[in-house]
């Protein structure tokens, strides 16, 4: 009976020990994989951040160009309006000067 119990105990302990050994190896591998993955993720995040920064910079540049174009259009319109106003003012003064 004792012998049977010992056998059963040994049969239980051995596989558990063996399982434990297998888990440690796997864990190391997983850990190594994870490390690599982490590095990759880090790289990807960095790449994404760099891409976003580049996109943001490009957008800012485009926004700046648009704003500058808008300003240029506004300035041209303003210049035209001032020229028109000047011409109208000059014309009004002329018409007044044509009275007796």
């Amino acid at each position, binding site marked *: 009976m004792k012998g049977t119990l010992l056998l059963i105990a040994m049969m239980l302990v051995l596989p558990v020990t063996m399982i434990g050994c297998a888990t440690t190896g796997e864990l190391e591998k997983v850990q190594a994989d994870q490390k690599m993955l982490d590095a990759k993720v880090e790289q990807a995040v960095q790449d994404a951040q760099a891409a976003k920064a580049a996109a943001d910079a490009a957008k800012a540049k485009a926004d700046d160009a648009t704003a500058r174009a808008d300003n240029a259009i506004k300035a041209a319109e303003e210049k035209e309006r001032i020229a028109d106003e*000047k011409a109208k003012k*000059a*014309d009004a*003064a*002329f018409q007044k*000067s044509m*009275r*007796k």
Partner: protein
Amino acid sequence: MCRFADLSLSAGCFRLIALWLCILSLQGCAALQSVPGKSALAPGHLAAGIERNDFSVAKGDDVIGRLAVVRLEKGDTLPDIARHFGLGITALSAANPGVDVWVPEAGKPVILPLSFILPDAPRRGIVVNVATMRLFQYKGDGKSLAVSTYPVGVGTKERPTPTGPTRVYRKAARPTWHVPASIAEDHRKKGDPLPAEVPPGPENPLGEYALYLSKPGYLIHGTNKPASIGLKATNGCMRLYPENIEVLFNDTPVNTPVAIVNQPYLIGQRNGVLYLEVHTPLEDSGAPELEKMYEKLRAIEKKAGRPLDWKKIREVQTEARGIPVPIFKLRQGSEQEVANPLEVEHPDKLSGRPEIPDLKLDAWYVLAADVRNEIDARRIAAIINHQGPPIPARVLAKNDDYRVLAGPFADIGEARDAVKRLKIDLEIDGILIDPVRK
């Protein structure tokens, strides 16, 4: 077989005729819709001149003259072009929207609106349409009718030209201007008091000739401010270019009937084509006159039994370019009679253009403006040049600045007088410049 051949031959003929008719009708459409401004002549084939004032009136017709086109040259102003071609400045500007009056672009073609619909008034004596700022003088022996037409300056909004029938009751060459109390008061307020009477001469606003009307205080006269022709600038009188009043004066006997009308919307026909000419109406007269125009057009549509192109009518009304525009064929085939604008040569010298004497070192000058923009400087100089009596002015470039220099003046008195006129008339503070060499 023979029958088949005959049939195909006649069908072919029929198709040919149909095609020919189709092409003809398309050409008609093009003529009727011709845009004023496109010349009938190719470049290099320009007409030497065009009739400006004297026209015969065909029986049953209401439209006289022809549109023309001229290409501007450097230094031209619209008032100079207007005077040379017998037009008023408002009429020329309205026909050429967007063209700078004083500094127009050289090489640009401008339309000369030398076609007119006669006002809806009896065709005798003198008829003045204040809305179009044009005078018509009818001459005829009963068999044929001729008309001479001239642009006029009319009354301001505050002192409009009165409409209605009147007549010439007196004529005077080299008239004296008896200054009305209201005008004397206006001048006194401006700091420019006038004498009770202004004798004949360059200071006299009546110019060299005057026709006194039976309506007291109103005259048809010349001017010492030719650039004012085609403007609402008078105290109710009608003024003409000096060269036009001379002809009218010599051609008009005392007692000639004069009808003064206000017709901004003119409808008339020539060679079976109905035309519409729209001018910007004078203040407060637009709505009733517009209603009259629509009433007339509806009556024409009813009589013709065909619909008018109301979209086109509204376009002509909105644009108000003062040009007779063909809007309806009263009879078939008549559309081919619509003439394209004639392209005329730019004259070597524009008649009446202000002369600018050469610079003299022993003369007085007035610095009228010192500006950064060349266009502004040229505009100021042109406006000063077109004062009446004229004040010569030119633009001198100095580094990045442009100076407008009025003169030369023979003495300090003349120069001071110019400073005063620039201040009173144009609100310009001129600076006296004494001679370099005395």
